[in-house]
């Protein structure tokens, strides 16, 4: 099973190493060469330096025969474009895209993109955490 991870920041690099440890053949792509360090010293997968909107870079990363593509660069709009290119140009069935903006994540999910929105997840978890707190009811103000 082959995965291409575009954007090798905190999220992308962790997804890449996790998938690799589960037996996937992973190639990571990042504009910044220094991002390779995030994959750790024993990284046996591929690493391509370049922009994910550049089809030459995508080809070099082996997108043409990838089983899964993970898109997690720091730019929502960049991720949206790359995700759709992976889906529609290369016909990849499993494309997951990280988007920080909940509204764009919802909009593009309706258009058929698998979007993951950590912001929305945080909102839900935080709200739920507050709801489940054991907060004593407010004491009625003591009569003076």
């Amino acid at each position, binding site marked *: 099973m082959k995965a291409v991870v575009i954007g090798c920041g905190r999220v992308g690099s962790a997804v890449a190493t996790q998938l690799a440890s589960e037996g996937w053949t992973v190639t990571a792509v990042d504009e910044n060469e220094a991002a390779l360090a995030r994959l750790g010293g024993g990284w046996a997968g591929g690493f391509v330096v370049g922009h994910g909107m550049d*089809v030459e870079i995508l080809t070099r990363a082996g997108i043409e025969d990838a089983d899964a593509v993970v898109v997690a660069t720091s730019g929502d709009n960049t991720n949206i*474009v790359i995700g759709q290119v992976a889906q529609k140009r290369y016909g990849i069935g499993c494309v997951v895209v990280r988007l920080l*903006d909940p*509204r*764009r994540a919802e909009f593009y999910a309706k*258009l058929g993109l698998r979007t993951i929105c950590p912001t929305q997840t945080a909102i839900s978890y935080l709200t739920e955490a507050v709801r489940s707190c054991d907060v004593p009811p407010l004491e009625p103000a003591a009569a003076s």
Partner: protein
Amino acid sequence: MYVVVAGGGKVGKNVARSLVDSGHEVTLIEQRRDRFERLEEEFGHVAMLGDATEISVLERAGIARPPDLVLAVTGDDEDNLVISQIAKEGYGVLKAIARVNDPRNQQHFDLLGITLTVCATSGILGLVEHEVPEHGLVRLLELRSEGLEVVEVQITGDSPAAGKRIAGLSLPEGARVVAVMRMGTAEIAAEETVVRPGDQVVAILKPGLEDRLRKALVG
């Protein structure tokens, strides 16, 4: 008509000014505060501060009316693509025109159905090609989504096509010579038209056949 212009750089600002001057209702969205403040001085309430790729910003700009036209002319291709997609697919805007900054991104706009695009770099390169033809083949018109091109080829004395009848040329399947220009006058190409050195041959073809057409005509 009502026009939303996303991006208040040189392109957006000048287009917005022309549209306002010709009596159209315009909202000009710019995300950089310094730029926005200068725009506000000139345009007043037409200028709006915000990131036009955010749906709430587009909604404030009246994307739901919807506008007759959305111009996505920021300096970032991914932003222009997303703005056009949200406008068309999310709010039923019928016409969105997107600026392509890097010609290599044109294919992404085509892929995602943003058919009205303008790329200054490609335009300039086209002119360069036309004024200084390097490979003997000049693109006159490109109907990308329709899959058709019109090209012009310069015939010289040592071109294999020189001296031949149109019917005798071995053109690739999917390419056809439609006219021959000689001394500034175009003549519709007939089977018996003879191609001569110095002619410019105009052909229509399916994209991708350029090299084979060039070989057949000029070697």
